[in-house]
C-alpha cells in the first residue's frame, strides 16, 4: 500500500461540488416531504375549505376535528390492528428464534435446502394461496375473527423471522456452543443460558420488521376478516374509496394509520434498516 492517509482531511472553503451535493439533497428531500406537507395541510382543513385550486395552501384556520372524526370511524380498527400486530409479532419472533437457532447451530444434512424451500414462502404472491387459505380459515371457524388473520401472519412470517435469526446467530461463535456442550449443556439449556440472553438485538430487528409488515398488510385483511375484525388498512381503504367523503377525513385517517409504524421507524430506524437489508437474503 502507498502512504496515503486513510481519511482525507476536510478541505476548507466553499467548493462547487459541495454546493451541488446539498442542492441535490434538498431537491430529493422535497420530493419525499411534499406529500407529507399536503397530507397535513388537507387533514387540518375544514371540509368546506377544501378546494382543488387551493390544495397547496396551508389552512387559514386549523380544524383538528378531522382527527376526532376519523378516530370515531377507524378507532376500533386501530385497536384490531394493534392486537393483531402485537400478537402475531410475538408469536412469529419466538418461532423464528428457535428455528434460527436450530438451523444455524445444529446444522444437519440438507439444512440449507430445507431453508431455501422455506424461504420460497416469503416471495410467493399470496394470491396463489389465497383461495385454499380462505377455505381453510373458514373450515377452522376462524373466518371473521382476528385469530384467523393472526394464524396467517404467523405462518407466512416464518421464512423472514427464521432468516433474520439464522443470520444473526451465524455471527455467534460456534466455540461458545461447543464449550457449553463440553460443560454438559444440552439443546435447550444452551438456548436459555447462552443464545437467548444475547438475542436482544435480533429480537428488536424481527419485532420491528414483523410489526410493520403485519400492521401494513392489506390482502389478508381484506379477505379473511369481516366488519367487526377489520384492521386499519382495510378501514382506511374504505374511508378514502367513497366519492362523497370530503378529503380531510381520509387524510386524517391516513395519519392515524401511519403513526405507529412511523414512530417505530423514527425511534428505532437503525434496526429497521437492518431488517430491510436482511430481507435481501444473503444466504
Amino acid at each position, binding site marked *: *500500500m*502507498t502512504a*496515503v492517509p*486513510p481519511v482525507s482531511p476536510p478541505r476548507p472553503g466553499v467548493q462547487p*461540488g459541495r454546493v451541488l451535493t446539498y442542492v*441535490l*439533497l434538498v431537491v*430529493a*428531500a422535497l*420530493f*419525499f*416531504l411534499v*406529500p407529507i406537507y399536503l397530507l397535513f395541510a388537507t387533514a387540518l382543513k375544514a371540509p368546506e375549505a377544501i378546494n*382543488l*385550486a387551493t*390544495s*397547496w395552501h396551508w389552512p387559514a384556520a386549523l380544524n383538528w376535528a378531522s382527527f376526532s372524526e376519523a378516530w370515531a370511524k377507524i378507532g376500533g380498527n386501530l385497536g384490531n390492528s394493534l392486537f393483531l400486530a402485537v400478537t402475531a409479532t410475538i408469536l412469529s419472533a419466538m*418461532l423464528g428464534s428457535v428455528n434460527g437457532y*436450530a*438451523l444455524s447451530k*445444529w446444522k*444437519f444434512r*440438507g*439444512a440449507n435446502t430445507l431453508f*431455501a*424451500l422455506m424461504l*420460497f414462502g416469503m*416471495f*410467493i*404472491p399470496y*394470491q*396463489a*394461496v*389465497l*383461495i*385454499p387459505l380462505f377455505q381453510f380459515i373458514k373450515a377452522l371457524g376462524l373466518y371473521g375473527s382476528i385469530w384467523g388473520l393472526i394464524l396467517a401472519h404467523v*405462518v*407466512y412470517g*416464518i421464512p423472514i423471522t427464521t432468516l433474520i435469526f439464522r443470520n444473526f446467530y451465524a455471527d455467534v461463535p460456534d466455540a461458545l456452543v461447543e464449550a457449553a456442550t463440553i460443560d454438559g449443556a444440552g439443546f435447550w439449556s444452551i438456548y436459555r443460558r447462552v443464545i437467548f440472553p444475547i438475542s436482544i438485538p435480533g429480537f428488536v430487528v424481527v419485532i420491528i420488521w414483523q410489526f*410493520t409488515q403485519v400492521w*401494513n398488510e*392489506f*390482502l389478508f385483511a*381484506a*379477505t379473511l376478516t369481516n366488519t367487526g375484525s377489520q384492521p386499519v*388498512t382495510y378501514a*382506511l*381503504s374504505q374511508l*378514502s374509496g367513497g366519492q362523497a367523503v370530503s378529503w380531510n377525513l*381520509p387524510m386524517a*385517517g391516513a395519519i392515524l394509520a*401511519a403513526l405507529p*409504524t*412511523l414512530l417505530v421507524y*423514527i425511534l428505532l*430506524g437503525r434496526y429497521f*434498516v437492518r431488517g*430491510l437489508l436482511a430481507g435481501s*437474503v*444473503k444466504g
Partner: protein
Amino acid sequence: MKGLSKDRLWSIAVLTPSIILIAVFVYGFIARSVYVSMTDWGNDPAQALAENPVIRWVGLANYSELFSGFLQGRFRQELVSTIFFTVFFILGCLGLGLGLALILDRNPRGEGLWRTIFLFPMSLSFIVTGTIWRWMLQPQGGVNQAPTLLGAPPSTFGWLSSQDAVLKFDWNLLPLITASVVGIVLIVLAVQALRAGDRRRTLVAGLCAALLLVWAVFIGPNVKMLPAPELHGFNLALIGIIIAAVWQMSGYTMALYLAGLRGIPEELREAAKVDGASDAGMYRFVVFPLLAPITLSAMIILGHISLKIFDLVYAMAGPDNLSTSVPALNMYLTSFRQNQFSLGAAIGTVLLILVAFIIVPYLVSQFRQQEGHA
C-alpha cells in the same frame, strides 16, 4: 459434528412444526390452487356458493380463456401493464436509489437526517401511500396545480384517469414476441458458452435458438390467439402509480447501495486514485462493478414486489379502474367479489409462475454453493 445425538433430535423436533406449516400453507395450498384452477368452480354463478357445489374438471380451459378468451381482455391488458409497471418501477427505484446513495456517500452534514427522510415512506403501508397520492393526483388538484405556484397555468394531465396508451402491440403477436425474446436469450447463452469453451452447451443453446427463430419467422405469424387484433400497451394512467411506488420504495435501494458503498474498502478507492484514475473513472471501473451484485438482488426483490403489487393500485385508482388494473387486483376481485374461484385461482397461478421465474434461480444460486460443505 457427528451422528444423531439427543440435541440433534431436538433441533429437528423444533423445526418440525414450521416445516409442516410451510408444507401445508405454501406448497399444499399452491397445489390446491393449481387444482382449483383446472376446475369450473364458480364459473356457473348458481353453483359458486352452493352448499355442495358441482365441480367439474376442465383442464387448462381457464388458462386458455384468460389468454385467448373473448371476455378476458382485461386480464391480458393487466398482464401487459404489470410487465411495464415492473420495468419502469425497477428503473426508477434503481436510478433514484443509486443517485441518493452516491450523494450520501460524499458524507454531507446531517447524513442521518437525510437518510431518515429518504427512507421513511418504507415504513408506511401501500394503503396510506395510495391515499395520499390519490389526493395529490386529483385531475384539478395537487400535482396538476403545482405550476400555478410559479405563475404558470395548471397542468391537465389525467394522472389516474388517462385513457391513452403508448408502445401498443397486437396481442396476436404474443407467440412471435415470446419466441423472439427467448431466442435472443438463447443466442446470448450460446455466445457465453462459446467464450467459456463449453462446446456442448454452445451447440444445444444455439440449436434451440435457431429452431425457435425459424418457428418465429415461418410459423409464428400464422398463429392467431384471437380472431381479431387486440391492442395492448403501456397505459399512461399508470405513471402516477409508478411515481408513488418509487416514492415509497426507492429508499430501500438507497439503503442497499449505501451499505454496499460503505463496504468498499477505502484503500481500493485510494489505490485507484494513486493509479491516476479520475473521479469518474474510479466509479466506472472500481465502484460500479462492485455494486453489480447489489443491483441484481435489488432488481429481484423489487421485481417480485412489483409483480404482486395490488394494494397501492386499489388505494390510488380504486378496484374498477380498467386502465390501471393489475393481475393481482383482478385475482382478488374475480375470486372474492364475483366468486369465480377457478378463474381467480388460474390468475393466481399465472402470477406465481411469473414470480417464480425470478425468485427460483435466485434462491438456487444463493444456496447451491453452500450445500456442498454443510
